[in-house]
Structure formats: structure tokens, C-alpha cells
């Protein structure tokens, strides 16, 4: 065999081996690149890619002037990894210094406000997680971060802050520790306030940095909207201060005050005491965490007389000069029942203004008993009783107003002076708003609007109106109510120097079993200035100790109304009230 042939054979063998090797590699290549390509690629991407949730911020709740009532802030849980706890070397003033665990724990205990011994216990063990402090503020977090301890780490989370505490707390409501809205407007308007979380996916390097050329997909966050309220936080605070003082003084179960802007139907203040601090709802009793103005119904008593008077006028049953006889006790011709006034007196001859001034039950009955019960029922419905308002506040009460067909003879009469029905402060406030607004009841407004992040309006509540009585009847009724404040025994204490005030007292005996007991819900609802009504203020005090008339309800009314008039720069009245018969003889009072 020649050299050439030998060389060719060797080359052929080499080519065969080479071909086999390339073949094997090709098979593996096809296996990796074609058969398992997707699987390997997915595995590789998974190890590099990272998805982050971009947290959307819950929107703010603001008062009518833009003051923040609720906002979202970040809080931090401070944790440690006991497994890694040990001395730390740090450069202090350019000198490498060792800091012992005890030294670090001492500083930590001061920053976190935890006892040294307790903190040391939490740092012991082999676990990788130990909670040192929960929900700390940003400044504490910064202080911990500045310490530069490698075995301490933190978790950031969103939390709700109510900078004004219990101011309007009962209305705003609160959220749970996990951010779930639990009560009030926080819950009702969650659709407006809650945002939509975004998401960011990217491929990261070994150091955790996004790889610049990698695919990055981002779904932007949509932060929650801003809920603008009609509440004036300054007036709300003032009213709450007054009520807190009143509840303390009278040892009452609770008190509420509502301030309504007559022309717009906006609720400027919905105050109550006790109130809840939404920053710490657990500090309040469960029954104090709601909003009684909307949720608690009570038998109104004599504040209803002002509304019955408007019905008497509107139906043409009587005018301001018509009089009736008003004994202190009036026996009824059924079931041995009777109606009596709150004080003993000889028979009075009372005009409608006189009935309001003396708060005579018998007088009111004599004026209104001739009006068909169905007609009176219709008026009460138009005033807003017996149904929830358009606010649809969480847990709002409709009160109780039975259909006229279900009224017995006694109910037919006592409804004229506020018994046999139950109402909320909201309902009564807007009934008075109707009288102050020329007979037109506006739907209550508590929310101005919901604005999106870009400032666009997402939602504005619609406001309807209901004509209850004629303008003439409403205005005349206001004039009658002025006599309560000018000459009424208790009503006089509601007078505000410089302003014409119209209003009505109410002292409702509370039910005790099947009858009435010795406890009361006292109220004063009023309007000022009477000649050009701007505000309705309604105050209700529930179960004040040792109080059996509404004399204690007028000072808070006066304080709150006076503050509203001052705060909104309402000029004092320049006119006098009209002389209208209101004394016990059906004549114009000698001082009128």
C-alpha cells in the first residue's frame, strides 16, 4: 500500500470520527435549540426575570377648603435576622470600629422605644426573622437605616393617616390594619378612593439591577381619587368641641349637631360626641364608631311642631292670626286617653306662633287634628321622614313613619307634636332646611365630588329637590318660629345678639318599655338669619342626666350657629321681626 493510500485511509477515519462527533453534537444542539428550546428559555428567563407590584396609593379625603382629613402614608415593620446577629464593624470618624451587639441593641431600644432586655430576647436564636417593631414612622425608619446594621431589615407598607384625628371621624370612617375600608365614607366611596396596583417586569443581573437591553414591561399604577367633602373641618372641630363639653357637663349618652348651608343643602358639619379617632378606632366603644346623625333614630318631640305648623299654614287650615283654646290637659273621646302640656297652666288662647312659643301639645293638636291624616302623612314623607336620604350613608336609618292607614286615633294626634314617629338628626335638619329654603327641601350633600389623579371629575353626586310647602307658607312659618326665640321660656336662650333667629325646642321623653320613662332626648333646631336664612343648626342631646327640658340644648346651638355666622362672615340682621300674635291671649306680645 502506497503512502498516498495510507494517508487517505487515515484521513477518512479521522473524517468519520469527526462526522460522528459533529453528529452527536448536532443531535444535542437540535435537542437544546429546537426540542427543549422553549423549556430552557423559560427556565433561563425565570431565573433572571423579576416582577414587582407597583403599589397604588389610596386617595385623600379633603374638607371643603382642601384640608386633608385622610391620606396615605408609608409605615415600616422593623425586623431582624437573629441567625446573623453579631458585632458590626463600622467606620466611625474614619476609624474602623467594632460595635458589639449590646451596644447596637442599646441604641435600637432608644430609637424603637423598646426595653433593652426585651429587645435582646428578640435578637436571640437561630431564626432568620424576628419582629422588632411594627408600624413605625418614617423618621424612626430613617434612624434605623442610618445605623447601617446588616442584620436589620424593614418592610414598607401603606397605612392610612387621619391628620385631624377625630374631627369628622364618625363620618369619614376608618380602614382596617390590612387597608380594608371598614366604615363611613372610606367604605362607601371605596371605588373612588382605591387605586389599581401596577406591575413591572424586568430581567435582572446577578446584582439585582435591571439588564438594560432586556424586555421590560410596565403596567402603570392608577392611584385612587381624591374625595372632596362639603364638611368644613374648622367648623366641624368647633362643633365637636362644643358637644364634647356638653356631653361631659350633662353626663349624656351622646350628642349630635348638624350644620346645613340652606341655599346649597351642603352639610358643613356633622358633629357628634363621643367621636371616634380613625387613627385608633379600637380606643372608642363599638357604639361610638358609627355616625349617629345618619344612623340613630329618635322620637323628635316638639321640634316636630314647627313642621306641623307649616302644614297647618300650607293647607290653609289657619293663618298667623287664627287662635285655638289650649288647656294644659285635654281629655280625648276615645279609650280614656288624654293629651297634656309639659306644664300646668290655665286655658290659653293661642295662635300658631303662641303654640310654638309655649310648645303646647294641646294647642298643636287642636290646630292640626282637622287635617286629614293622609295629607299630613304626605307632608311628612315630603319632608323626608320614613325613608333614607339620597346620601345612602352606610347603615343610614330611615326612622319610623308608619303609613297613615296604620295610625290609630292616638297616633293620629300625637304625630302633630313629634310622638309616634322617629327621625334621624339628618332628616330633621333637612326638614328645617326646607322651611328655611322657601319650602324646597334639597337632597343632602356630604360629598362635593371625586377627582381623579389628573384632576378630572370622576363623580359628582346629583342633587334633587322637593317642594314641600309653598314659599309663602315657609316664610310665614319662619316668622312664627322667630317668636320661640324672642319670647319662648327656653327658646330665648338661643337668641344670638345682632341676628334674627328662628327655631324650636324639643324635649322628647324616651320610651321605657311600653310607656314613656324619665329620660329625654332634648333638641334645638334653628335657622339664622331668619330674614335671609343661611344656616340650619340642629342639636340633639340624648339621655342627659337630670335634665327634663331643652334648656341645655340651646347653648350648644347658640355657640355653633354663632360660630358659623362669624366664620362665614354673615352680616348681622338689619331688620326687626314682624309683630305676630304669640302671647297666651292670642295677642301680640307687649314687647313685640
Amino acid at each position, binding site marked *: 500500500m502506497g503512502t498516498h493510500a495510507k494517508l487517505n485511509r487515515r484521513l477518512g477515519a479521522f473524517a468519520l470520527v469527526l462526522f460522528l462527533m459533529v453528529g452527536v453534537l448536532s443531535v444535542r444542539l437540535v435537542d437544546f435549540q429546537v426540542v427543549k428550546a422553549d423549556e430552557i428559555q423559560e427556565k433561563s428567563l425565570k431565573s433572571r426575570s423579576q416582577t414587582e407590584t407597583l403599589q397604588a396609593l389610596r386617595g385623600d379625603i379633603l374638607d371643603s377648603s382642601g384640608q386633608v382629613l385622610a391620606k396615605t402614608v408609608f409605615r415600616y415593620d422593623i425586623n431582624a435576622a437573629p441567625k446573623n446577629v453579631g458585632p458590626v464593624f463600622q467606620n466611625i470618624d474614619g476609624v474602623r470600629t467594632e460595635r458589639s451587639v449590646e451596644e447596637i441593641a442599646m441604641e435600637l431600644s432608644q430609637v424603637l422605644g423598646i426595653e433593652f432586655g426585651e429587645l435582646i430576647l428578640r435578637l436571640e436564636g437561630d431564626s432568620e426573622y424576628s419582629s422588632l417593631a411594627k408600624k413605625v414612622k418614617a423618621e424612626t425608619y430613617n434612624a434605623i437605616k442610618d445605623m447601617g446594621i446588616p442584620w436589620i431589615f424593614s418592610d414598607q407598607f401603606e397605612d392610612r393617616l387621619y391628620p385631624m384625628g377625630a374631627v369628622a371621624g364618625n363620618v369619614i370612617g376608618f380602614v382596617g390594619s390590612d387597608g380594608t375600608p371598614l366604615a363611613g365614607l372610606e367604605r362607601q366611596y371605596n371605588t373612588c378612593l382605591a387605586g389599581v396596583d401596577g406591575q413591572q417586569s424586568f430581567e435582572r443581573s446577578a446584582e439585582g439591577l435591571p439588564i438594560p437591553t432586556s424586555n421590560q414591561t410596565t403596567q402603570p399604577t392608577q392611584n385612587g381619587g381624591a374625595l372632596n367633602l362639603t364638611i368644613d373641618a374648622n367648623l366641624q372641630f368647633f362643633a365637636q368641641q362644643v358637644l364634647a363639653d356638653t356631653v361631659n357637663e350633662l353626663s349624656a349618652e351622646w350628642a349630635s349637631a348638624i350644620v346645613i348651608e340652606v341655599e346649597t343643602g351642603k352639610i358643613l358639619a356633622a358633629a357628634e360626641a363621643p367621636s371616634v379617632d380613625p387613627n385608633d378606632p379600637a380606643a372608642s366603644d363599638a357604639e361610638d364608631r358609627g355616625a349617629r346623625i345618619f344612623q340613630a333614630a329618635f322620637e323628635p318631640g316638639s321640634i316636630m311642631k314647627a313642621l306641623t305648623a307649616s302644614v297647618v299654614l300650607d293647607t290653609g287650615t289657619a293663618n298667623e292670626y287664627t287662635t285655638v283654646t289650649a288647656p294644659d290637659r285635654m281629655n280625648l273621646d276615645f279609650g280614656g286617653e288624654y293629651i297634656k302640656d309639659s306644664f300646668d297652666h290655665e286655658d290659653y288662647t293661642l295662635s300658631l306662633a303662641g303654640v310654638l312659643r309655649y310648645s303646647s301639645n294641646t294647642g298643636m293638636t287642636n290646630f292640626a287634628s282637622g287635617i286629614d291624616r293622609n295629607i299630613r302623612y304626605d307632608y311628612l314623607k315630603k319632608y323626608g321622614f320614613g325613608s333614607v336620604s339620597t346620601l345612602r350613608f352606610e347603615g343610614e336609618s330611615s326612622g319610623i313613619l308608619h303609613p297613615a292607614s296604620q295610625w290609630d286615633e292616638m297616633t293620629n294626634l300625637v304625630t302633630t307634636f313629634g310622638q309616634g314617629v322617629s327621625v334621624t338628626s339628618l332628616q330633621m335638619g333637612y326638614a328645617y332646611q326646607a322651611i328655611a329654603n322657601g319650602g324646597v327641601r334639597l337632597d343632602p350633600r356630604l360629598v362635593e365630588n371625586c377627582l381623579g389623579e389628573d384632576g378630572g371629575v370622576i363623580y359628582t353626586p346629583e342633587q334633587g329637590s322637593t317642594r314641600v310647602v309653598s314659599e309663602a307658607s315657609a316664610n310665614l312659618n319662619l316668622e312664627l318660629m322667630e317668636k320661640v326665640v324672642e319670647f319662648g321660656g327656653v327658646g330665648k336662650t338661643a337668641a344670638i345678639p345682632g341676628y334674627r333667629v328662628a327655631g324650636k325646642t324639643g324635649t322628647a321623653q324616651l320610651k321605657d318599655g311600653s310607656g314613656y320613662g324619665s329620660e329625654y332626648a332634648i333638641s334645638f333646631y334653628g335657622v339664622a338669619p331668619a330674614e335671609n336664612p343661611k344656616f340650619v343648626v340642629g342639636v340633639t342631646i340624648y339621655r342627659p342626666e337630670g335634665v327634663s327640658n331643652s334648656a341645655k340644648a340651646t347653648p350648644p346651638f347658640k355657640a355653633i350657629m354663632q360660630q358659623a355666622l362669624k366664620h362665614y362672615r354673615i*352680616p348681622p340682621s338689619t331688620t326687626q321681626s314682624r309683630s305676630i300674635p304669640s302671647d297666651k291671649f292670642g295677642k301680640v306680645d307687649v314687647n313685640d
Partner: protein
Amino acid sequence: MSVFMVTEKDAKRLRPSLTSGLIFVLGIVMVLVGQLALNMVLTHDAYELRALKIEKRELATEVQIIQEEVSSLSSPQNLADAANQLGMVANPASVLIDIESDKIFGEPTPAKAEGGQVAAANMIANSALGTVSDFSIATVASGELEVSVESIDSVDSGLVLRSGLIPASPTR
């Protein structure tokens, strides 16, 4: 596969040109260097982006701290307590001046320290209250504030109102 025997002359002719090889290699090196430079710039930007994000987060935290401090100081609870510390008394009587008609509405009445309906100090809970105003003697002294208030019993009647000259209050 076959092996061809060529002459030395042909082998020289068929040998690849060094220049072409150099150009090819240089081209590849330039592309690689360019890619490296581009990657370095991008990586540097990634680090810078991360640094800026950290700075943004730290600044946002600072903003939150300051905002919470302002919220606490401007809360009605703190203002009520601060006013109480300063001995301020609310005057419920309002006196208004109508600039258009040069009329004064209401009777000026001095504020009464006692007997008012409103409790001067705060009574409304606020567990979010952090930083509060401090008007203790030490604080006031350190601030070198003038604490004496001169009381004026009578106002000089030389004040003349001229319609439209007093700007309207921006508050409600």
C-alpha cells in the same frame, strides 16, 4: 472527502491574504469594542437610575416626615392647645365692616375668658398628633420672642374708611 496535492507555487497563491485577515479581525474587534462601550454606558445608566430611584425614595420619605409634622402642627387640636397656652380667648361676637357702604355691623364686645361655651383646650382625640407647638417660657426665651403685649384701651378714631380701599379678606 479528498486531499489534493498542489505545487508550492499554487500553495503560495492560495494562501489567504494577511491584509484581508487583519481587516476582518480588526472589524470584529471594533464591533466588539463598540458593543462593550455601549453596554458599559447602559450599565452605568442602570446604576445611575438605581441611585436616582433610591434618592427619590429617600426624598419622598423626607417629604412625608415634614408633611406629617406640618399636619400635626396645623391640626385644630394643636392650634386649640397652642391658643390656650398663649391665653387666647375666642370672641363669638362678630363685627363686620361693609366697605361699599362704609357700614359697621354688630356691636364690638370684648371676649370673655370665663363662662364661654367652648372649652379653650382641645377635647377631640387625635392619636396622630406628633409634633406640637411649645410655648413654654424656655422655648419662647430661646426664640428671643417679645412676650409682652401692650394693651390698648381706646382706639384712635382717626381711622378713615375709604370705600374699596381695603382688600377683601381671602378667607371665608
